[in-house]
Each structure stands twice: as C-alpha cells, then as structure tokens.
C-alpha cells in the first residue's frame, strides 16, 4: 500500500439506470477504484440535496449523484426534477463550504457500465487531488467568528 490518500466517496444512484449500469460494470469485470460506495434509491428524483450535505458531515470526501439520462427516466420525469434541484444546489455548494469539484453529477444508463467505471475513477482521482474534506467548523465557532467581525 502506498501512502496515497484514499478518499471516501458516496454515490447516490437511481435503481433503474445507474445502479443497473454499475451491475453491468461488475458483470463485465471492469476494474475501478474501490473508493465509491453506492446507496441505492428508486430515482434521482428521490435524492434530497440534504443527503449530500449529510454525507460530507459524516466524513465523506466526495459524492457522486447519477441517474437515468434525460428522457430515459423510469418514472418519466423524476430526473428532470432532480436536474433542476441540483442545478440550484450547485450554486449553493460553495456557500455551504463544499468545493463543487467534490460532487460529481452524471447520467449513466443501464447499458453504460464503462461510463460508470469512468465516472468512478475520475471522481476518485479528482477528490484525491483535493485531499480530505475538512469538516465544517462547528456552528458555534462560526457564530463567534461573525460576532467578532461585527
């Protein structure tokens, strides 16, 4: 083992496209970085942006969100709602103290095992470059900081 930083990455994926795509990657024996742990949800529409913040709070260094391609949603439109939600969320990430590069949004279909491996490897490399995620300062400390300034 080298001293390479091994980031801890959580992937929130939909059951129908990306989860199945990741299954395909397995069936095809595509080797990829072991840093990504998948949490299965029915649809990207189910993914609350708070899940992402919670993951960081609990020690994740990076997050992947992935679902069906636009127009391919198993539930017709869930991924469109997700897309809007994440478009807004992306704007707020820095405000929340998270480097947007730590979060990867992608569309991986059930037939894109290779693409899933790429997404996993790229996200791992990217987060590895960024280093461990420094936890948020506690709210109290933050409040103190504001108080000092004013």
């Amino acid at each position, binding site marked *: *083992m080298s001293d390479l930083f*091994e980031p*801890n990455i*959580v992937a929130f994926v939909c059951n129908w496209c990306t*989860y*199945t795509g*990741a*299954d395909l*990657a*397995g*069936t095809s*024996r*595509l*080797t*990829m970085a*072991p*840093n990504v*742990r*998948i*949490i*299965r*949800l*029915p*649809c990207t*529409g*189910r*993914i*609350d*942006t708070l*899940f992402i913040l*919670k*993951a960081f709070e*609990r*020690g*994740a260094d990076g997050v992947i969100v992935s679902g069906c391609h636009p127009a391919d*949603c*198993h*539930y*017709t*439109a*869930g991924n469109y*709602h*997700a897309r809007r*939600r994440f478009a807004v969320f992306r704007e707020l990430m820095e405000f929340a103290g998270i480097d947007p590069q730590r979060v990867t949004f992608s569309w991986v279909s059930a037939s894109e095992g290779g693409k899933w*491996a790429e997404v996993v490897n790229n996200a791992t490399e990217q987060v590895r470059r960024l280093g461990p995620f420094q936890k948020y300062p506690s709210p109290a400390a933050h409040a103190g900081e504001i108080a000092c300034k004013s």
Partner: protein
Amino acid sequence: MSRIGVFICHCGENIGRTVDCARVAQSLGDLPGVVHSVDYKYMCSDPGQVLIKQAIQEKNLDGIVVGACSPHMHEKTFRKAAASAGLNPFLCEMANLREHCSWIHEDRELATEKAIALGRFIVEKIKYNRPLSTIYIPVERRALVIGGGIAGIQAALDIADGGRDVILVEKESSIGGHMSQLSETFPTLDCSQCILTPRMVEVAQHPRIKLLAYSEVESVDGYIGNFQVKIRRKARSVDETKCNGCGECQKNCPNKKIPSEFDQGLGTRTAIYVPFPQAVPNIPVIDRASCALFRGRAKGVKKVVCGKCAEVCGRNAVDFDQQDSFVTEKVGAIVVATGYQLYSIGKSQELDILRGYGEYGYGTIPDVIDGLQFERLASASGPTGGKILRPSDGKEPKKIVFLQCIGSRDPAKGIEYCSKICCMYVAKHTMLYHHKVHDGKAVVFYMDIRAGGKGYDEFVRRAIEESHALYLRGRVSRLSRDGDVIRVQGFDTLSGEPVVINADMVVLATAMRPQPGIAALAQKLSVSYDQHGFLNEAHPKLRPVETNTAGVFLAGACQSPRDIPDSVAMASATASKVLGLFSKELLEREPLIARVDRMTCTGCFHCERVCPYGAVERKTLTDSKGRIIKVIAEVNQGVCQGCGTCQATCPSKSVELDGFTDEQIYAAVNAI
C-alpha cells in the same frame, strides 16, 4: 433493540476470491443490533436458504441482510425465503458485494473494507425498515377503447371475445377509421371495405361491446383497475333510438354541395349525412356548421329556414334541439387507438416546428393530391366510381408522378421519422393506376424503398416489373403549372441528371402524423408523448403496448406510423394485456409507495406538481363538527409508482416513501 441477522455469501469463488467473507461477517456481527452473522459458500442455494430460515426462527430475527450479488438478481429469492420463515419480506435487504465490489476490485484488503462498508450501510438502514404488505386493488373488469379504426375495432373484438365488456368510443359518426377510406390494401390487393365492414358489423352486434359513436373522452379520473371516464356524446341532432337508417333525410336535404370529409374533399355530401353507405352505426348526423336551419339559428333568424329532413323522417327521429350529453363509465383498463392523420402540407400549420411545402402547390394546384385522395379516386365507392380522373377537369391522367417522403424524413421541415407505409402504398397506387389506365405511365420519386415485411418487397418489384412504374431515386424541388400540365422539376440521383416531367397529376405521399388533439387526450390520461405527438410506450422493445401509466395501453398508429397488419397485431397484443389484467379480481402492487403524514402536511402541494403520475390527491380534513381543518395531500395507492420525487420535494418533510424513508437513507449515510 433490533435483532438483525447477517448472511455473507461467497458465491463460490466469485465474492470469496477478492473479499474476505469471514472477516466481513465477523465485522458486521460486531455492529450493535446484529445478533447473528455468518458466511456461507452459496446463500442462494437450498441449504443456504435453509440456513437463513433456521436463523430467523431460532434467533427470532426481526431483519436480515444478505451480502451477496445484486438485489436485481436475488432480492426476490431471499425475500421469499424470509417470508416462508415468517419474517415480513420487506425486512430483508441485500448488500451488493459481487457486482459492486468483488468483481470490480483486485486489492483484497480494500475490497474487504468496502464490502464491510456496504454491509454496514444496509445493516443500519434495515433497523428502520417497516414490515409492509402487498397492496391489493380491486379491478373493474371492463375496458374502454378510444378510437374505432381498425386497431380499436380489433382490440375491442378481442377483449369482448375474451369475455370482458368493452366500451368503444369513436369521435366520428361511424367507426371504420382511415381503413374504410382505402381502395385496396397491400400486399394482397384485397378490397379494404370487403375485409373491414364485416368486422364493423361484428362490433355493432357484439353483446359485450357498447359502441359510443360520435363521442369523445371528456375526462379521466382514477387509476389502473378503477378509472372513471366521462364521455361526451356529441349531439347528432338525430335520435339514435328512433332512427332506422332509411336515408330519406339525406336524400331530401337541399344542401348537397358540402365537401365530403370521407372523400377527402373530392366528393360532396349533404348537411344531414352518413359518411359512407356501410357506416356503423348507420345513423345520420347533422353537420350544424353547414345546415341551413342551424346557420339560420346562429344568425338569430327567427323564421325556421329549413326542416326538410324532419318533415320526411317517418320515425320523427330528427331532433334539432338535441344537446351534448355526458355518460360516465367505470373501467379497469383503457386502450388508446386514435390512429393518424396525414400531414396536410399546406401553408398554415398548427405546430411551429412544422413548415409546409409551398413548393408543391398543394391546395393551389388542383391536380396535386395526397395519398388518401388517390385512395378515394381509386375506390369503387369513391366520388368517381373508381375511375382515376383529374379533380380539375375530370380527364383521365395519362401520366401521374408520385412523390414519396413528402414531409417524412425531412428534419428541415419538422418531421425526421419515416412514415413507414408510403413506400408500400405508392407501389400499390402505381399498380391500381396501371390496372385502371392501361396506357398510363406512373413515375415515382423515392429516397429509399423500405419494403420490409412479408411479401412486401415482392410487391414493389411487381409494381416495377409488371405495372411498369418508373422509379427515379431523387427528390422533386418544385411543382408548377404549365397550362394544362404540372411541371415536375426533380433530380435523378442515380443518373446524376436533373429531370423535368410534365405530369397530368401528382400524388404526394405525405407523412403520417398523430391525430389532432392527441396531446390533450394524452394529458387526460397522463401518458407521455414524443415531440411529434406520438404516444410513448413503456419500453420500446420489451413493453411496446403498455404506457408508463398503469392500465393505459396503446394500439395502432397513435404510437408510431403503422400499416394495417402491424396495427392489428398490436391491437391483439394490447387485448391480451388487458385480458391478462382482467384475469384476477384483485391487482397486486408492491407496497414501495409514498404516504403523507397528515399531521405535518401543510398543503403546499409541491408534491402534486412534481408527481409524474398525478398520484397526489387533495383531501379535506374536517373536525367532528364538519369544519374544515386543512386541505392536505394524499397519495393514491393505485397510481403511485414509488419514484420518491415528492419526498425530496416536500418542504415540510411530510412525505415518506416506504422502503426508502429519510430515516433509512440517513441511517445508511450515517454509517459512512
């Protein structure tokens, strides 16, 4: 405190090779709440399952986690095993240690660590799983078929013959659809009406089919097994119960000069009319826009202008004061078979993406007609009695140019798709023309000849070899009048030469488009449609006749351009799906659906707006005295498909998706 059992599968060598399964079992066994943790060579095998069942019973487990392959592979297997041991199946979950771990990693240490993490997620999650039970929904075993063309007729007959009641709704005054307008059909050249009209009569006489002609679907409520459909019965101005179809009214109507829709404007009809002699039901309708009496009324003329039809009707069936009426039917399944229209290539288009073909002068040059108009000219029951004559001067055309792909396969004009039937019907037209005008010459401009189908390519060869149609590969840039003839300027791409042909008549094989109003109907049914308006099937290959709305099925050209054999096959497929649905009195549904906490719901209805299925309903909460407390959202169990978009959207966190509740997901995330 939970009593969780963990079962780690080696999957032979598949998992065991890269994951230290014993260590995973041991490590997960140390987690709080886990009372039993083992590893085994093949968990899915019979002895493996016995292992699980015994553990559940002996250790009184209240949740099990199987660390094995993908849940898509064996979740059902293990849930069944759990159920047989008396554990609620939804208290069994799987951790994917094979596809998502052992198969994609090589480093045993890292893979084992990851396997432990994946197992830990599920262990933590399952602590919050609730026992769920399968939902049973009663099924109203009657079907509604929308559209009385060949697809709708076939679907209705098949369902009715299968022993279920059918309501067939047709917006025109007679069923039969476009097929009743056709002269002869490819590839056998049998007369369309000869094969269709017996089926139409069968519909009318079938004891299980209720035919509602001249009616339209007004609204659809409910869900699979339990739809309430409100149907508008448009005012015919003729009492269906009294009329016996004698036709005296039609004979005596003074207004005989109205272009006939059935004859595509080439023939005329009266204001009170039956669209064609074999109409089913054979009951006339008054076209109020052209009837003198109704026009007089609309203008506010006090005097009754006409009334001939009522005077001659021996049965007093004509009713000028008839109003639209409504009926509501309860059905368990809906078949959409609304068919197609031909792309009218004139200048004005109802959709912005479509642009007409001004260069072909359709609508201004009288002898430029479309495929359906040619069908009417060639039809023995058509306006010319089956003689091919020019609409402009009634002369027999000695040279007809047929243009294929007008509108189809032309992204620049708004339609990219292939209309599929045109290659075949143009070949048929050249044959019919050759049979009727022996010294006539047919020239066809084509892009490709797409004649896939039984006997189809042979048919096109016959058109070329026996009917001597001249096929030129290329497009036509302009049609212009040159005195009596139409100048056709085109290009033959095989010889590389521009071609100018003076034709007596030009027939445009225009694109097939969905019926007007399809979008409105699709919205009533919450069925999605593509940018052209064709309805979307649930899966293009594996679920071709179902839609994403459970209980709504498709048949025929409303889904994509189709010919008669394809439409009939699809209609029968749909009918078998409907009969399958109706084979049980109760419908089983997975209980992984959303529910609303009525205490915390604030009634903002964001969920209602994002739900792709329209599953969110509004419910009024009242106190014991009947005073309204608040209006809240409620999820219809029959309609919800369990995507969870509502839950992620809910600002007050009042929606929970069973199987994927916030508690469960946060528990998993906390286990990072």
